[in-house]
């Protein structure tokens, strides 16, 4: 059943016979290793690999010099917005962004309008996926209307081959209901995926609660809001024995909980998002809602913990949480703007930069309490008012506290300076192959899309294998321009910033859907 279901749950595009293609000059890289090889692709399959392949007559040759030829990336976490918010994104536009980002498969999150809590909506999205440029898999909702009150028809949805269920956008708040969902899911052989956020503890926070939220006067959501639900759900996994996947973990504390649970043998997996590996809460200093995301960008120590979790194998996947919103929705006060940022076209470069090259986070230096205080709001300078130049830093930071008297507690003893980069020590960097694994074969297995699960994704790149291949240039720099991304929305946090790592070509089912960085349809 798993095999049949695994295939049925995806809409794979097919537009007639794919041409014969030779991917020439690259280094083939998959779960089994890496080797210099040209790759011959015909009829949607890899036909041959050889260091110096003869090009058959009529074959399309794609130059992969200096590039990696890897199994297509698999995104566990994409918001395709269709049905219901087509002004933000459609299955088609998201799939174009996906292939331009190196993805051959994406899992569509069910928080659409109407939500994917019903067979008819799931069928509709799968149908749209058949016209898409990549494989579109679907996740179903855990509860009806994602309202957290009663279980969605999981067995009916599983009958379509749906393997992941989540109320993403919100966590299931009712622990009793979550327990029943896990018990029910276990018998179906499906996996529940939780957006961990205790709503009462988060209390409407719009950014990470810490030095920056306190300085900026923005309501903060503490890491404890995430960690409390991780802890609760780990207890429920222990109780029910049902497997579970944790979506977009963002705090050091969450990873510590998952590490302990895995060490104890619990059947859990977890993902992190590229932006949580590269950006910190300091990005909110300018009050730009582009940087509002849920879970929020956190402190530098959390960024380091996530990187460490990836390097040590604790984290099972990097997933984009691609969340398009139209400009008018983001041009609002921070507490009214919806959370979310684009991710599909930048994930490869951002993840490679964070985990392989160990690049510093953007805003790293400012991600300290003193930074929060000194920098205040950029751009607010009253030119001509401050008189004699900048105020000395010693002065603007206020006076150091003197020893406490009476009932007073010195501030620094209570909260102190936020940990800066030294707090996490040296985070080991990862090989490129391990980074690709976090983006490809490891998430493919969680999504039930791997070959040994009856799917087509995540490699290996071998004769007879499915020709979902990305050709990745790990060294090419580029500057992100939100307006030229394939998404219908522009809410990328990387606009105007420089990244290193591009997608040169992309084959989906043997069809070259991206050639030299250009989408072919």
């Amino acid at each position, binding site marked *: 059943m798993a095999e049949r279901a695994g295939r049925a749950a995806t809409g794979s595009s097919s537009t007639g016979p794919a041409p014969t293609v030779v991917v020439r000059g690259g280094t083939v890289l998959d779960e089994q290793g890496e080797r210099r090889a040209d790759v011959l692709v015909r009829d949607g399959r890899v036909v041959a690999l050889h260091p110096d392949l003869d090009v058959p007559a009529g074959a399309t040759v794609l130059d992969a010099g200096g590039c990696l030829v890897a199994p297509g990336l698999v995104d566990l976490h994409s918001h395709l917005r269709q049905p219901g918010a087509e002004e933000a994104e459609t299955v088609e536009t998201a799939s174009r962004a996906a292939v331009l980002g190196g993805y051959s498969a994406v899992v569509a999150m069910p928080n659409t309008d109407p939500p994917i809590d019903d067979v008819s909506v799931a069928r509709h999205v799968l149908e749209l996926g058949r016209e898409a440029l990549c494989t579109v898999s679907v996740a179903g909702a855990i509860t009806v209307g994602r309202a957290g009150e009663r279980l969605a028809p999981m067995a009916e949805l599983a009958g379509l081959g749906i393997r992941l269920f989540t109320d993403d956008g919100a966590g299931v708040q009712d622990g009793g209901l979550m327990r029943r969902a896990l018990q029910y899911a276990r018998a179906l052989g499906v996996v529940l995926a939780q957006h961990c956020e205790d709503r009462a503890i988060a209390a409407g926070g719009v950014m990470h*609660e*810490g*030095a920056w*939220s*306190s*300085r*900026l*006067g*923005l*309501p*903060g959501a*503490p890491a404890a809001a995430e960690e409390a639900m991780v802890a609760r759900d780990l207890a429920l996994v222990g109780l029910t024995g049902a497997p579970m996947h944790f979506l977009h973990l963002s705090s050091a504390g969450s990873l510590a909980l998952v590490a302990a649970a895995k060490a104890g043998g619990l059947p859990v997996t977890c993902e992190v998002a590229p932006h949580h590996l590269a950006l910190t809460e300091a990005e909110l200093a*300018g*009050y*730009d809602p582009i940087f509002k995301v849920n879970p929020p960008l956190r402190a530098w120590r959390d960024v380091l913990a996530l990187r460490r979790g990836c390097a040590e194998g604790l984290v099972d996947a990097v997933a984009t949480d691609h969340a398009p919103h139209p400009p*008018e929705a983001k*041009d609002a*006060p*921070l*507490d*009214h703007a919806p959370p979310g940022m684009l991710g599909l076209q930048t994930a490869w470069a951002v993840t490679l930069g964070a985990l392989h090259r160990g690049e510093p986070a*953007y805003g790293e*230096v*400012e991600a*300290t*309490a003193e*930074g*929060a*205080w000194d920098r*205040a*709001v*950029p*751009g*607010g*300078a*009253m*030119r*001509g*008012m*401050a*008189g004699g130049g900048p*105020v000395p830093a010693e*002065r*603007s*930071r*206020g*006076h150091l*506290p003197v020893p406490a008297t*009476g*009932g*007073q*507690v*010195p*501030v*620094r003893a*209570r*909260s102190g300076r*936020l940990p800066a980069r030294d707090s996490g020590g040296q985070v080991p960097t990862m090989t490129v192959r391990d980074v690709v694994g976090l983006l490809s074969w490891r998430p493919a297995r969680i999504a039930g899309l791997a070959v040994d699960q009856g799917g087509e994704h995540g490699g290996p790149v071998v004769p007879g294998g499915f020709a979902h291949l990305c050709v990745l240039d790990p060294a090419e720099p580029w500057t992100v321009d939100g307006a030229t991304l394939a998404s219908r929305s522009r809410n990328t946090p990387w606009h*105007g*910033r420089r990244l290193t790592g591009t997608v040169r070509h992309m084959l989906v089912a043997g069809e070259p859907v991206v050639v030299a960085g250009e989408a072919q349809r």
Partner: protein
Amino acid sequence: MTTVPADVLHPPRTSLLSVADLGAEGIARVLRLSDHFVEIGRRPIPKVPALRGRTVATVFVEPSTRTRLSFETAARRLSADVVSFTPDTSSLGKGESLRDTVQTVAAMGVDCFVVRHASAGVPAQVARWTSRSVVNAGDGWHEHPTQALLDCATIRQALAERAGLRVADTGVELFDGLRVAVVGDVAHSRVARSNVLALGALGARVTLVAPGSLLPGSLAGWPVHGVTADLDAVLGEIDVCYVLRLQTERGAGAFVPSLREYTAGYGLTARRVARMAGDAIVMHPGPMVRGVEIADDVADLPRTVVLRQVANGVAVRMAVLFLLLGSDEQLASDELGAGAIHGGSAGARGSAHAEKRGAGRG
């Protein structure tokens, strides 16, 4: 190192978004200048031509009569024209976005937006959407810079009187080592944030006094001397007791078990005032909730300078608008004796200059 230069995303311009933008020197300059405007306010016709031809728009998306009237009075006393927006009277109520509203108004030739909003950061956003000056008139829990400035002006007056000096003869050195307690709902208070910044910059020793549930999630980096939950422990050691309003309309009531218990722990009663030094003053940003954070009889004591705070509000806001919108010539002459403000020859030149610029923008 910040990888994206701040001025790419937020071009520097003449706006007042945070009192921290001013620094100690800037605050001192506002206070010096407001001395002139206090004097002007005492005249039979309290009006000068300094900003003739300039237009100030007050955009108050959160209800506030006092602050809006204070800004509008300040602008009119400088002879600026004033246009006024509230959600009830504008197309904001029809679903137009704030960004479109701001850009529409800017296109009419407004020189300065005075922005009040329930959400932190909106003045910073407005400053990105328009090239005009923006004054933060209070944004969410973030800041209320002109409140902190008028509070500093009020403290300076009280300190000068205490020392037997003329206010105009004193500077901000009076603040060095000044002991200030900020009492109450710090977490949800923009007034607290701006005052902590301003007083910290001037060298005062600020102690926060509040139950843990009314403190922000982190105090890391705050330029404060200490924090305590025990008001009685600090009363005898302060020069200024700054009482914050318990913001029950923002749900702050849920952060303490009851108003009765809050008042018992943090309400400024006559019994508590009696433990303060004889010349220590009591301040409150208003509107006061008598019987909750401040007892009725305390609110009317001579040492309670609330009405003086309000009176100083107009002069301080005149100073801010003048510094933002006055011409370079006017600002230069302000340093030489405020000739521009008083309508002297330098002022006449300045006004003509301002009108020319204003016409060019219209």
